[in-house]
């Protein structure tokens, strides 16, 4: 387990997390997924957090009106292309294939 495992024991105690601090952080499941993918990739060493952060800064600066998690997802694609892990063309192809699925397809998430 991670070094944070010790936190878990306290979570349900008398000082359990102040729930009224808990605004909705993710408005849609894909936003949580995009967040988790970046952290998991960094932990696995597949990308560097600092490289991702620079891409995120650039994406946000590029279009301030774009929703935050959309910039996040775009930065993820940028950093994957930077390290030759995944090309935009591969993702486009899969994206189109998923869009072509029959209506009512059971999404994983």
């Amino acid at each position: 387990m991670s070094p944070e495992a010790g936190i878990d024991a306290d979570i349900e105690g008398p000082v359990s997390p102040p729930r009224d601090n808990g605004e909705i952080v993710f408005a849609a499941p894909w936003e949580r997924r995009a967040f988790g993918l970046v952290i998991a990739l960094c932990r696995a060493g597949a990308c560097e957090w600092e490289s991702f952060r620079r891409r995120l800064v650039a994406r946000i600066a590029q279009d301030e009106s774009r929703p935050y998690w959309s910039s996040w997802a775009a930065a993820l694609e940028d950093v994957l292309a930077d390290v030759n892990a995944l090309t935009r063309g591969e993702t486009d192809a899969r994206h189109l294939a998923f869009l072509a699925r029959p209506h009512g397809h059971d999404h994983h998430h």
Partner: protein
Amino acid sequence: MSHAPVSERHEDPAVRVEALEALLVEKGLVDPSVVDEVIEHYETNVGPLNGAKVIARAWVDPAYRARLLHDATKAIAELGFGGPEGHMVIAVENSPSVHNVVVCTLCSCYPWSVLGLPPAWYKSPAYRSRMVAEPRAVLREMGLDLPQVLRVRVWDSSAEARYLVLPERPAGTEGMDERELATLVTRDAMIGVARALGPATAGTHA
């Protein structure tokens, strides 16, 4: 149907992210169960409670307070918080003459290990630009009206440094122990857009 390249269409980011994950899993770059773990960790385990414990400890233990102000990353790790996304944290201390508030003007740098994930307003262009230009006005709109004699310091977080505000210990809390004190420390107090809660609210906040 739009004629923009598929990667530039934003109408269904869910499908785009699903495609990304499918490819990353096939290439062995990511393990979906690790993604699940990461998300669950940030949603349930890592929250402002961690930071509240740090602040409460600093209120009751002057030696810990000194260590926190000297090297917050290390002092936070003493309580078991940190981890791969911990980054360098710097604690800034409120006093009767100085009020500190934190912003990230470039993106959303935030001390995740102690505060969890940032609230939506922290990431908004309005907060990020206005907090630097007119902090008193923004704080007043957020419900914190600071007297003119109080100096306001705005700290801009970055990859190098993420700031955590050490709020003043509220008056009338002399009889409270560390656990009770932690219930007075809100996320907003540690960002610097609010004060710690008064003792009358202890226990009702959790």
